[in-house]
């Protein structure tokens, strides 16, 4: 990295536009989402009927746990329930 003139600084600043707000919020909510999903998985391991109901409608189960059912969250739950 050599010296910076103002044109180069402007070019470099332009390289880092903000990420879409919803993506950032989803990533920031990850710890809370994971906690909510852990509760679902734990209950599903004890209760076969609940597990079947969750698998039948993953989004509803996620929403019921107080977590926004974003695709990445739903997919994470699907993987854990099928593991």
């Amino acid at each position, binding site marked *: 990295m050599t010296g910076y003139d103002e044109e180069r600084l402007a070019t470099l600043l332009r390289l880092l536009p*903000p990420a879409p707000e919803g993506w950032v919020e989803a990533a920031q909510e990850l*710890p809370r989402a994971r906690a909510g999903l852990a509760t679902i998985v734990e209950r599903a391991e004890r209760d076969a009927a609940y597990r079947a109901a969750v698998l039948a409608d993953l989004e509803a189960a996620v929403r019921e746990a107080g977590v926004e059912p974003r695709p990445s969250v739903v997919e994470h739950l699907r993987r854990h329930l099928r593991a």
Partner: protein
Amino acid sequence: MTTTRTGDLPDAAIVQRCREGDHEAWAELVERYARYVYAIATQAFRLDGHDAEDVFQDVFARAYERLHTLRSDDAVRPWLGQMTRNCCVDHLRASGREVPVDEVEDSPADDVIDQLDDAFAVRQALGQLGEDCAEVLDRFFCRDESYRTIGEALDLPPGTIASRISRCLGKLRAEMGRNMAAQPSSSQVNE
């Protein structure tokens, strides 16, 4: 008793707090690196739409799960950069598309990542300039807002915005000069 705002903490302290389960610290870590991860996915690997979003979420999910494996808490940027690169490569391979990187790190994508590392250093310097300069430069260069839009948001005439951008770029240049003199770059990646 004095408290330190999470946003003022260095990376190492943020990482430590994340490991202790501090959700505010995690939110700050995401805020600090979201643009960098996004830029690698969209500019170095040219992912768009759902592909870029999948990688973006996957990177932060992996980071959350693997934070305990980070050997140097000061090395978050290279660690996340490498993780993003790996996620992009995995994503492209899984969908059967061409991967624009070689085994050795000397490919077009890696050249872009080098540029983004420079851009990240500039962004960090921007954070040291104070809110007035940081906001006006971010709005103009990063968010591509016009003088008029910025002026309306900040309740200032467009001519003032133009002169403030010029003055703040000068301050940013001086700040970068000080930063470069103070610390030659060294990084440690452990993924």
